């Protein structure tokens, strides 16, 4: 195995680790509303979401193609650049998980790759039009649409069922949340697992294993990304579940259904057209919309504000870390030593932080 192949193996392992943290981090998006409205028991909700995330990863490859060809110039980047971008994304994901903030794994990934590419090959290697048209504008539009859809949907719901027996209505919407939660998990797998697939494809192109002009996403890439995100989802992230499920606002079953319906509709439509948007931002938008549609003061705008700050910081912060990590790997030369040293240091840091947080953490109330 030569140096290039060794770096490729490290990159694929890191990409799958990122995919795992993505599932781990974003489980909250998928299951929090179902758990907080008691539509599903926590254990069942997480297992259900894991299975549907796995299935969702096989549905579409539009987003993977966008990541692999529309954001950075595949010709200008190396496997070390992709490695640095992935480490930037993982660091940001773990930092926001540590503080319980539902930030965007997708923007962390894109930011990390863009930052490392900028450090390695300069601004010319970044497709500004792809970044703006496929990432930044949809990043603004999608959560706003989810907010409006969630708000309008809940107003219509209350108009229709407002005078019916509360017990029947709650039971009905709890039943509906099993379907809407399932759709949301499917949508999450479809959009998010593809981002990892796109990065692995980018690494395969950079190492000469795939042609830039004409590539198909290999089946092993799809299957491994699907498995990693499903495992991460199953492991769960209870800290963020609590923020999403109860801290933005206390939801009833109708609001949970509206928020999940809004999120699933926006993510599935975006995946179909190849926009790699943030599922976290979309679902947060839906949750806030379903609260604001009932009563503006029902939303804890302070918590919502923290989430918005995390949204804004994600791209530049991950880009900065990605660029920094690339710089560190270059201290050890162009070979595999830099990525190896960073991987080992990263694993030690993650193990220490994870151990401390798990010991300090507390499970969400069932």
């Amino acid at each position: 195995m030569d140096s290039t192949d060794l770096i490729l193996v490290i990159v694929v392992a890191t990409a799958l680790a990122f995919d795992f943290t993505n599932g781990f981090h974003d489980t909250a998006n998928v299951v929090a509303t179902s758990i907080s409205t008691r539509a599903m028991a926590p254990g069942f909700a997480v297992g259900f979401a894991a299975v549907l995330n796995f299935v969702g990863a096989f549905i579409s490859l539009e987003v993977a193609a966008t990541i692999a060809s529309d954001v950075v110039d595949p010709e200008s980047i190396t496997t070390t650049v992709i490695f640095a971008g992935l480490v930037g994304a993982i660091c940001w994901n773990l930092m926001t998980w540590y503080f319980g903030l539902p930030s965007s794994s997708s923007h962390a990934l894109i930011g990390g790759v863009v930052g490392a590419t900028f450090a390695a090959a300069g601004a010319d290697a970044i497709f500004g039009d792809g970044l703006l048209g496929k990432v930044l504008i949809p990043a603004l539009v999608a959560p706003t649409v989810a907010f409006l859809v969630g708000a309008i949907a809940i107003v219509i719901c209350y108009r229709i069922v407002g005078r019916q027996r509360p017990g029947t209505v709650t039971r009905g919407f709890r039943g509906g949340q099993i379907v809407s939660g399932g759709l949301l998990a499917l949508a999450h797998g479809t959009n998010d697992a593809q981002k990892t697939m796109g990065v692995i494809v980018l690494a395969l192109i950079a190492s000469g294993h795939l042609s830039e002009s004409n590539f198909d996403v290999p089946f092993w890439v799809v299957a491994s990304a699907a498995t990693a995100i499903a495992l991460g989802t199953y492991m769960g992230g209870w800290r963020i579940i609590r923020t999403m499920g109860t801290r933005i606002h206390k939801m009833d079953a109708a609001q949970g259904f509206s928020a999940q319906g809004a999120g699933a509709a926006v993510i599935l439509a975006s995946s179909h057209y190849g926009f790699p948007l943030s599922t976290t931002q979309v679902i947060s938008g839906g949750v806030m919309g379903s609260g604001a549609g009932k009563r503006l003061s029902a939303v804890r705008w302070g918590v919502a504000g923290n989430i918005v700050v995390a949204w804004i910081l994600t791209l530049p912060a991950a880009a900065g870390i990605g660029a920094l990590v690339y710089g560190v790997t270059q201290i050890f030369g162009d070979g595999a030593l830099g990525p190896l040293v960073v991987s080992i240091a990263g694993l030690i840091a993650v193990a220490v932080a994870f151990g401390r947080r798990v010991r300090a953490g507390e499970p969400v109330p069932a």
Partner: protein
Amino acid sequence: MTDVAQALVATIVEWSELGKTVAASFLAGVGVTAAFAIAIFGAAQFSERRRSDEAVAAFGAALIAALGLAVCAGAIVFGLIVMLSD
């Protein structure tokens, strides 16, 4: 925004696809939620009418509930078929 900047943004952003995404999101998100609420309304009315022995009204309510559920199921199946056709 200057004319040049406007033209640049118009070229870079795929407004047509973004517009379709927004329209599909509104239609599916609001439509399915409303249809499901109608199904719950029908189900709630059905149990009330049946309790008060109003057979015709109960049948009508059951029909409304079934129609609402059929619209939801149809929309979900249509969405999945569109996604699988990628």
